[in-house]
């Protein structure tokens, strides 16, 4: 067995400081880039004077929007069929937008030269609050787009409106709640950057860049810049965390490439933390109104949602083309609901682009938060225990595969079992008793429950593509004559441990130790095409490809083994990591023996080529649907509004666990994210569009002090569609945990009549809520 806890192969380099991140790559003669950014949220550019910067003795080039316009590169396509300015030509549309790019001999001089560029702006009124974006007199942000007279991007709906509305009209009980899932940022500790090296002689462009989707980048560079694709090599080396923020192409990458073409030297650009927080992909920013219809005894019948989605100044969300709101329409969640309907309207605002990032599974995060808050609102209305209300409505095991009211086909699950396990681990009844005692003493303790169903592993090519590129992943497997293997995959780890997990998959399938399998990834010249690592898709898609390509190798090995054993392949069976004649396992041939024979002078049947190497492409038949039950316990100080997360119990079912140690690590990290989003993290703006979270002094992330010791439990319900039954887990905890924390805090504040409060539940916000004056989290100052 190769599955099970196994120390990571990656660790040997990381613990020695021998990782190789983009900023660690150095090339001879390398120059350094820096970006001048807009101080305004919305302003017309009157003039850009670069003469003083160009006169700086260490500056080699200054590139402006006008320079790029001359190359037809001032604008680039986004991942959502929109365009985004690489360097602004006409207007700036958010604070921090890219205006000019300086290339200098060293990084400090490049920064110095930014100060020498003189840009004259004519400030314009800005649209900051998405709720004002569609006002008749609102400034038009995207006047660059032909015929655009307002800030509306799209309307989209899912589900059955008539049936849903009918159920609402007849319902015994209905509840409604407005809520904001605030704008947050994934904030990986490594910022974004690129090192571009264009070789004029060979015409080859090499780009080192921490991208989660190296192959998509290569194709997009070819499409945008008109470079032949076989002359582009994207290398994504070690990545210092991605979380969805490193999927798209940022203007700085294009600038580094142009800088290299212009100067004939390699050009490295690394953004600083403020640039990262101000300009790279934000996440969420959903203004939601949820409504639930139910019977008085707590049977949920219908749910409907209206969403106003703030997409920033350019529609740059990264999600399958068909779904402008991502997978938000999985919002009926884990419950047996008759009908559901959602309407989503996307708008432009004068804020950075993005939206789908931060371990969100294409907006399943927002969907789960919505439904899990609504269930608690309903529980409060009905006077029912929120765990009991969930138990009454959860889908039952016999209902799978289950088609949801918005068209998803959930693959497998035993939801009540997971919730029961979480309640047992938490000691739910005891906690409620403790809470009652504390309330009697005036102390605020809260217990929050959430149950989530994830939708990951995008996806079936028929339904899911990004810019026309179907979301199927390739894999290549070579088996050397001595039985050691090299797996090449298209996805790219940002810390998930693919070099270990994928080796375990191959090892399991071939009957060889995982240590004998080398995993190559992150280099487009060395790996087959695929769409990359995000949306928890590595194990569901590339992991499946790794298993299937291994089985192809095994099938090839069977023919060789048959020749070795002088038997018919039909008489062989695969057992204990060997091919043997049925009934005679002792004479079986191991993969190492077969590999050597496959490269030898052994006579093979006609038409059999020899060697064992194989290639495959995995086009998933369906998504996979991990799920879980979370329980959070908080104590709230009514005097200060401080929330302390005392306990967090997380039961996850992600199907078969290849390496449970790595799975648990993924869950730990996601839980910390959930606590951070619920209690601390928010990208706030003032009324002029000034970014109020542009450093780690203002954008607060959880430390070891805010995180409890996580208590994990597991159930295992294999996916029936995945070749090894795995479902993916990278984002489950980020999806499921914020609602548990918020539900716990709202539960704690029950004595004050609180039914809802928006994230982040900072001490100031909790204190205001307690005092009946909640503030709007999208704007810092009411």
């Amino acid at each position, binding site marked *: 067995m190769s599955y099970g806890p196994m*120390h*990571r192969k*990656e*660790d*040997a*380099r*990381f*613990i*020695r*400081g*021998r*990782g190789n*991140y983009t*900023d*660690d790559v*150095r090339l001879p003669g390398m120059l350094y880039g820096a970006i001048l950014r807009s101080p305004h949220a919305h302003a017309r550019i009157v003039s850009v004077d670069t003469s003083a910067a160009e006169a700086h003795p260490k500056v080699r080039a200054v590139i402006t929007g006008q320079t790029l316009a001359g190359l037809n590169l001032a604008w680039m396509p986004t991942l959502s069929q929109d365009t985004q300015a690489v360097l602004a030509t006409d207007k700036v549309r958010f604070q921090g937008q890219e205006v000019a790019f300086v290339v200098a001999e060293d*990084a*400090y001089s490049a920064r110095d030269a930014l100060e020498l560029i003189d840009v004259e702006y004519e400030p314009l009124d800005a649209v900051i609050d998405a709720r004002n974006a569609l006002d008749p007199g609102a400034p038009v942000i995207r006047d660059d787009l032909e015929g655009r007279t307002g800030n509306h991007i799209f309307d989209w709906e899912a589900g059955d409106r008539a049936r849903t509305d009918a159920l609402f009209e007849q319902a015994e009980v209905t509840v409604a709640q407005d809520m904001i899932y605030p704008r947050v940022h*994934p*904030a*990986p*500790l*490594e*910022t974004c950057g690129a090192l571009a090296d264009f070789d004029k002689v060979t015409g080859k462009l090499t780009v080192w860049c921490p991208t989660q989707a190296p192959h998509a980048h290569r194709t997009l560079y070819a499409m945008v810049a008109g470079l032949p694709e076989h002359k582009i090599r994207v290398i994504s080396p*070690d*990545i*210092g*965390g*991605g*979380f969805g923020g490193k999927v798209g192409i940022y203007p700085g990458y294009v600038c580094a490439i142009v800088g290299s073409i212009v100067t004939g030297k390699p050009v490295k650009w690394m953004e*600083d*933390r*403020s640039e990262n927080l101000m300009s790279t992909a934000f996440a969420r920013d959903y203004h939601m109104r949820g409504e639930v219809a139910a019977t008085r005894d707590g049977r949920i019948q219908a749910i409907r949602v209206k969403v106003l989605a703030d997409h920033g100044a350019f529609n740059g969300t990264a999600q399958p083309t068909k779904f402008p709101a991502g997978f938000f329409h999985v919002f009926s969640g884990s419950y047996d609901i008759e009908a559901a309907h959602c309407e989503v309207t996307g708008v432009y605002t004068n804020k950075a682009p993005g939206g789908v990032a931060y371990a969100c599974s294409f907006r399943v995060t927002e969907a789960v938060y919505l439904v899990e808050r609504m269930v608690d609102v309903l529980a409060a209305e009905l006077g029912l225990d929120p765990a009991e209300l969930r138990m009454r409505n959860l889908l039952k095991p016999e209902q799978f595969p289950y088609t949801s009211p918005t068209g998803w086909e959930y693959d497998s699950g035993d939801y009540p079992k997971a919730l029961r396990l979480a309640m047992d681990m938490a000691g739910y009844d005891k906690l409620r008793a403790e809470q009652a005692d504390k309330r009697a003493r005036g102390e605020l303790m809260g217990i929050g429950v959430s149950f989530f169903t994830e939708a990951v592993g995008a996806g079936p090519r028929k339904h899911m593509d990004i810019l026309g590129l179907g979301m199927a992943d390739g894999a290549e497997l070579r088996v050397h004559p001595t039985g050691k293997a090299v797996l090449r995959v298209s996805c790219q780890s*940002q*810390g*998930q*441990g693919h070099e270990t997990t994928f080796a375990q998959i191959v090892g399991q399938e071939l009957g060889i130790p995982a240590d004998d399998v080398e995993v190559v990834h992150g280099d487009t010249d060395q790996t087959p095409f695929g769409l990359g690592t995000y949306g928890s898709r590595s194990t569901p898609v590339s992991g499946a490809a790794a298993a299937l390509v291994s089985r192809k190798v095994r099938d090839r090995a069977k023919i060789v083994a048959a020749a070795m054993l002088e038997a018919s392949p039909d008489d062989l069976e695969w057992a204990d990591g060997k091919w043997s004649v049925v009934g005679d396992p002792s004479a079986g041939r191991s993969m190492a023996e077969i590999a050597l024979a496959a490269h030898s002078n052994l006579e093979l049947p006609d038409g059999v080529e020899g060697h064992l190497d194989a290639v495959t492409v995995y086009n998933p038949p369906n998504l996979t649907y991990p799920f879980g039950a979370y329980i959070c316990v908080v104590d709230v100080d009514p005097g200060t509004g401080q929330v302390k997360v005392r306990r967090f119990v997380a039961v996850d079912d992600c199907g078969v666990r290849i390496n449970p*140690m*790595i799975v*648990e*690590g*993924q*869950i*730990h*990290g*996601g*839980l*910390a*994210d959930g606590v951070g989003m619920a209690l601390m993290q928010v990208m706030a703006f003032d009324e002029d569009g000034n970014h109020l979270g542009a*450093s*780690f*002094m203002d954008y607060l*992330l959880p*430390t*070891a*002090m805010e*995180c409890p*010791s*996580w208590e994990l439990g597991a159930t295992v319900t294999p996916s029936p569609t995945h070749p090894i039954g795995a479902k993916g887990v990278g984002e489950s905890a980020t999806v499921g945990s914020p609602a548990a924390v918020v539900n716990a805090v709202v539960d704690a504040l029950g004595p004050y009549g609180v039914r809802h409060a928006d994230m982040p539940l900072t001490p100031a916000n909790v204190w205001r809520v307690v005092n009946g004056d909640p503030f709007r989290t999208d704007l810092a100052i009411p």
Partner: protein
Amino acid sequence: MRITVTVNGQPYTRDVEPRLLLVHFLRDELDLTGTHWGCDTSNCGVCTVQLDGVPVKSCTVLAVMADGHEVTTVEGLERDGELDAVQKGFVECHGLQCGFCTPGMLLTARWLLDRNPDPDEGQIREAISGQLCRCTGYENIVRSIRWAAEAGR
């Protein structure tokens, strides 16, 4: 300015700009890229090194301030081919994922164990509270440091 800094036991003399940050001195002048750079405001701690045995955020120390002092980076933890117990602990307990915060965490962990060979969970959490990790939720970092403490007893 001409400075001499002893890094991982070896003295290095360089002419540097007075404004050069220690993190850039280590990375760009000495090619010790195990020390990372993450925020510029002393919040994230991925640039943590030991200066005369005490953890500092090297993004907010000027290289000239290290003149005549001793710096230990992650590259200096392994001695004669033998990993430090904290390095082993992080492997044993899956204390790292993307690896970006790891060098800084290791140096703080080593400092903690030098002062307190048997820290409890709370003491470990407090010791690393000036450093961010976005991957592990800190759970396995705490376990890794405990592992190292027990291995050192």
